[in-house]
């Protein structure tokens, strides 16, 4: 696992030190070294970053100001000479909090914490990749992809059909299409089907669990290319 990281600190020696320590570590790749939070925001807007080494007290925008401006937080390690920010660090759920100057031992411990957190996130993502959660009667119900037969557009809502029940969800077909995995395909403007559930296919329609679903001319080539044909 190689983590793309940036260093944000207004003090030169701190930047050099962190850059050196990161470059010595096999799991880290330094993408940018920033003298202030504004520079860092530009870098963060341009590419995905796994980890920010972030000084707290900087002129103009502080480290916390920078975190407030990020829609999604990557892993964050705060670096500061003060210990008074521990509560704020906890509030922002940063991965670690290092007091300057940073020793090699403490640096390695912090990187290990980041790697552990990243692995945990990856496991959560893999679990989420096998199902979607659908709001039903005021609660979110887990609907495994394997249980979905097809999705039907009903105007403002979409209907997700499984073998056991139907879920009515206020969303768009496009949004759902993006969320579902590769085993799904939109075959018509009103239908997304689970490719594993097709019973048979004719010229202009197909059957999924006794439901006849139309195939649009535009979607047919993609459908046929995704099937294991003899």
């Amino acid at each position, binding site marked *: 696992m190689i983590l793309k990281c940036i260093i944000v600190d207004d003090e030169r*020696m701190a930047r050099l030190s962190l850059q050196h320590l990161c470059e010595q570590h096999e799991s880290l790749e330094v993408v940018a070294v920033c003298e202030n939070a504004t520079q860092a925001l530009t870098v963060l807007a341009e590419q995905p970053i796994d980890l920010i080494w972030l000084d707290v007290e900087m002129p103009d925008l502080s480290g916390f100001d920078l975190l407030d401006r990020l829609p999604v937080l990557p892993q964050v390690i705060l670096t500061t000479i003060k210990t008074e920010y521990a509560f704020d660090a906890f509030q922002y759920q940063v991965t670690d909090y290092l007091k300057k*100057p940073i020793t090699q031992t403490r640096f390695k411990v912090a990187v290990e914490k980041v790697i552990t957190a990243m692995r945990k996130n990856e496991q959560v993502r893999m679990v989420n990749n096998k199902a979607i959660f659908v709001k039903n009667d005021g609660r979110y119900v887990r609907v495994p992809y394997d249980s979905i037969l097809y999705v039907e557009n009903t105007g403002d809502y979409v209907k997700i059909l499984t073998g056991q029940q139907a879920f009515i969800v206020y969303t768009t077909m496009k949004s759902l299409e993006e969320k579902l995995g590769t085993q799904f395909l939109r075959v018509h403007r009103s239908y997304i089907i689970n490719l594993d559930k097709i019973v048979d296919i004719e010229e202009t329609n197909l059957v999924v669990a006794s439901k006849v679903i139309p195939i649009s001319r535009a979607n047919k080539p993609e459908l046929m290319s995704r099937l294991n044909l003899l």
Partner: protein
Amino acid sequence: MTNVARELRVTGAGGGDPTERYQLLDIQFLTELYGDDKEYAACMLETFVDSVLPEFAVIHEQIQAQRWADVHPAIHKLRPTVLMVGLTHLEASLILLESLLFKQDQADRINAIWQDFYTTLQSQHPLLEAEWQRYLTTPNL
């Protein structure tokens, strides 16, 4: 390099007993920071001497001009750097200065503590240069 920084180099050019080096530089802390990575240690010492000492010279001018609003963030920013070159005994003065500057009173006391700190910092310059050279030139340090 500013005039003050140039003056620092001249002032610190005196020789002295090499064994005294260890009386004022915290070698144990330097070892904790840099381990056996001599290039890393030398780079940090070089940066301190070439880039950070001139920044302290700027603070000296700001203190003389009583520009307290500029002095406080500058001292806070540079506080870790004295530790990074083993001048751990100087940190207490900077902490005290930060505290006094936060309240923005006792100008005489701030001046006195700063003067003491800055004079000591200047006196350490030859030791820092020697330590930097030692990291560069001594094999199996």
